[in-house]
């Protein structure tokens, strides 16, 4: 569907909502095309293709609020749906804090906006045969090449996502992103009946920049590395967390910084704005204008213009994620509805803390546990107490000695981050969050 037509549908939906009694409306139309192709061993397994569109309609009527969606976008049907939605909204309890953002906060396209470089214009021209070949070549890197290999599957995925958002206060914004990925999963014959498995993955927003080789080899290397894994003695160890899974340690902080959790008093960072909770050398920043990064954006889900934010500055909680609604509830300024591109600020970081890689961290730490994967677990958002299943390797003198599994890493988020030992610079630029390898001293592991 042409973009002009989408804009016309959105404008009509807003007009329909207002004509039927809404005071304000925000409508988001999203449209995507996806394809995936997978192989098992050397044979094709699945082909999956789709196009989809849907409309998300947020209504504000008599200080009441409702959120509605439909993928049935034909004229009469949409009109009836909106009419019923306004009626439903008006039955709810009044909430005067529900309204559109202050227009001064809106993103405005003045013609000088940065190009976030998130759309690959060659998307429609890439031959299906090339996509299939990418999956097959990945599996063939290892299929039949190691007698211990039990199973290998590789998959190619791509998507083209477009969204247009408009509201009755005049906001207009659109974004378009392409994303390509190749992944590989494999399992190998382990001790007894065990079949240790692992995976590897590459992605990029541009097909010609997508790394297409070495993914199968990496998955196999990781699976073979798990053979003979066992649990070791419970105790306190230095934990080095590999960059590809280190965002697991940051997610609980982001949840606790969220306005919805704060408003419900369900956050271990409630009341900590401006307070030094974390160590001096920890600065977590949000950089929404990073180019060619999936999380980058010019405006958030309510049209509020994004900006660079120092979320945690030298250990001090500097910003919460506050939407206009929770801004009014909490009497705090609007920031953003959530993180865009999170990074650790490495500028001026002491060389004793900033490290290039997890290998360098292991050498500096001497002994400990190198965590390469998490297996379940959770974090209590009220208290910050957590317990995560982990797998990885035990290391001594900076060298890996044996694989470990069936162990838990437990503690409290604030205590753990206060034992932050090293911050790496080895994050994957293709991820939404640029979280590098991290190391913590005296982390509590449970095993034998």
């Amino acid at each position, binding site marked *: 569907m042409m973009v002009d037509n989408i804009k016309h549908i959105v404008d009509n939906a807003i007009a329909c909502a207002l004509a039927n009694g809404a005071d304000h409306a925000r409508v988001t139309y999203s449209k995507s095309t996806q394809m995936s192709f997978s192989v098992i061993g050397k044979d094709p397994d699945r*082909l*999956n293709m789709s196009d*989809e569109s849907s409309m998300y309609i947020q209504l504000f009527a008599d200080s009441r609020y409702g959120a*509605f969606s439909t993928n049935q976008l034909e004229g009469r049907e949409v009109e009836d749906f909106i009419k019923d939605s306004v009626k439903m909204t008006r039955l709810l309890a009044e909430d005067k804090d529900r309204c559109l953002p202050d227009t001064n906060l809106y993103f405005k396209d003045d013609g000088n906006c940065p190009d976030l470089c998130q759309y690959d214009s060659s998307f429609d021209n890439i031959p299906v045969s090339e996509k299939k070949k990418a999956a097959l070549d990945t599996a063939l890197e290892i299929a039949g090449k190691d007698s211990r290999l039990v199973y290998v599957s590789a998959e190619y995925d791509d998507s083209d996502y477009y969204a247009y958002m408009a509201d009755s206060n005049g906001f207009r914004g659109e974004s378009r992103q392409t994303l390509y990925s190749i992944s590989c999963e494999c399992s190998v014959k382990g001790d007894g009946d065990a079949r240790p*498995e692992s995976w590897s993955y590459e992605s990029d927003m541009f097909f010609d920049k997508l790394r297409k080789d070495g993914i199968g080899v990496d998955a196999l290397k990781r699976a073979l590395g798990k053979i003979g894994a066992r649990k070791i003695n419970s105790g306190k160890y230095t934990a080095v967390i590999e960059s590809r899974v280190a965002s697991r340690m940051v997610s609980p902080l982001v949840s606790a910084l969220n306005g919805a959790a704060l408003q419900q008093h369900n956050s271990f960072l409630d009341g900590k704005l401006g307070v030094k909770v974390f160590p001096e050398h920890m600065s977590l920043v949000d950089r929404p204008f990073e180019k060619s990064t999936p999380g980058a954006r010019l405006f958030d889900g309510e049209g509020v213009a994004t900006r660079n934010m120092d979320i945690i500055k030298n250990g001090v909680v500097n910003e919460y994620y506050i939407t206009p609604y929770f801004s009014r509830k909490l009497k705090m300024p609007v920031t953003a509805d959530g993180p865009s591109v999170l990074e650790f600020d490495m500028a001026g970081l002491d060389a004793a803390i900033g490290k290039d890689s997890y290998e360098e961290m292991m050498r500096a730490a001497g002994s400990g546990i190198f965590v390469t994967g998490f*297996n379940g677990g959770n974090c209590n958002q009220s208290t910050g107490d957590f317990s*995560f299943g982990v797998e990885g390797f035990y290391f001594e003198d900076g060298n890996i000695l044996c694989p470990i599994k069936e162990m838990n890493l437990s503690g409290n988020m604030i205590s753990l981050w206060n034992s932050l030992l090293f911050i790496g610079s080895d994050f994957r630029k293709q991820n939404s969050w640029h979280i590098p390898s991290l190391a913590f001293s005296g982390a509590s592991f449970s095993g034998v």
Partner: protein
Amino acid sequence: MGIQFDYDKVLAAAMSTGGDYADIFVEHSTFSDITLRDSSVNSAGNHIDCGTGIRVLKGDRTGYAYTESMEFSDIMRAARVAAGIADSSASYNPVPVCVSEPKGWGYYPLSDAGDRMLSIERKMQYLYMLDDFVFSSDEKVDKVLARISDSITEVDFVNTQGCCFHDVRPMLSVVSSCVMRKGSRVESNSSSRSFRAGGGMLTEGLIREVADECVSRTSLLFDAVQPKGGEMPVVMGAGGSGILLHEAIGHAFEADFNRKGASIFSDKMGKRICRDFISVADDATIMFNRGAVNFDDEGVPGEKTYMVKNGILTSYLHDRISAKFYGVRPTGNGRRESFRFMPLPRMRATYMENGKCSEEELIRDVKYGVYADNFSNGQVQIGAGDFTFYVKSGYLIENGKLTSPVKDINIIGNGPAALASIVGVADNLKLDNGTWTCGKEQQSCPVCCGMPSALVEKLTVGGVN
């Protein structure tokens, strides 16, 4: 509803490249939710989602495409895309369609039009009632967040074997969480109930049950600590402990993993895998249960499938692809999240049958260990067999007695080893009717789990060392 287009033409297009089998899955879903926050029912939503999925099988390969459009030309285009998995040419001879009817009235009949979707006024009334119940139960309550959601999904299905069915699938869920404050300490917890049923299932009694559980679970946490971690015996309390079965063995019994040789149980069919007093079933036939299915999403009637009978592995959970591979009949486990996904072998209501001990006897046998009865999430690595589940709260067991409450511990074990080390099963089987949702290959499916209390000799308990 019924399929409104010429499905023979669509199936012919799907089979045009030499596929062995094709099916059409048409879905229309209406989902409503309404939320109470700060003692005010101040947000609600209604969501319509519909479309058609076309699947083509050629040997073990699958081609899948879907469209949200009701235009016949778009549905035909999806069929031709799905046909791309095969690479020859063939003509398709339609077979006579035989409409399948559910057993009796089915496992989730709707009594009348009012039972289909609740009025917003009625849902608001129940949310305010829930808020009152929670706040009046404990003076420590600071905040309540509660939600009622209900949905009706209508499915029409036809395949190249002439199988055809229509199914109306309701779902009703109530979820409540509360935050309590005691001095400077804050704790939160939640409770939920979910049924494949219409609004008639929502009663004052159900609301009271959710409120009471939410309050008692949260209040308990103020006395709870993270224990010292390590290997120890664990008594799994009746009900939600079924997550042990779901994660430790259920996923590993899903036949697609075994067909690919990726499961740790791949070579265990017909062999003893645990003690003879243990039987584990996956059941689609429990009335109004969240995991009930009249037909799975590829037209196979729902049934009760024993995975383990008297300690012997007796059946995997099959969809049509794996059943064909193993030369057995499908078990009705071919499920999908929606028309956007192809079906996969998935669990329904998974539970262990009763043993002969009492829960007290199981606890009495433990010198030092953990009793776990409130869970949040779990996960498994199919090949290694390592599983985990998160214990929101429970108790320490010391010298055969429950002592201090514990909280926020991850328990981790190995599926075959854990199953083999279940040394006692009580006679108090309970299904947990919470909002259990299983994730696999980016698809979510509603499930249920249950268990009598059971003693596992040794699991790794996360804790502070």
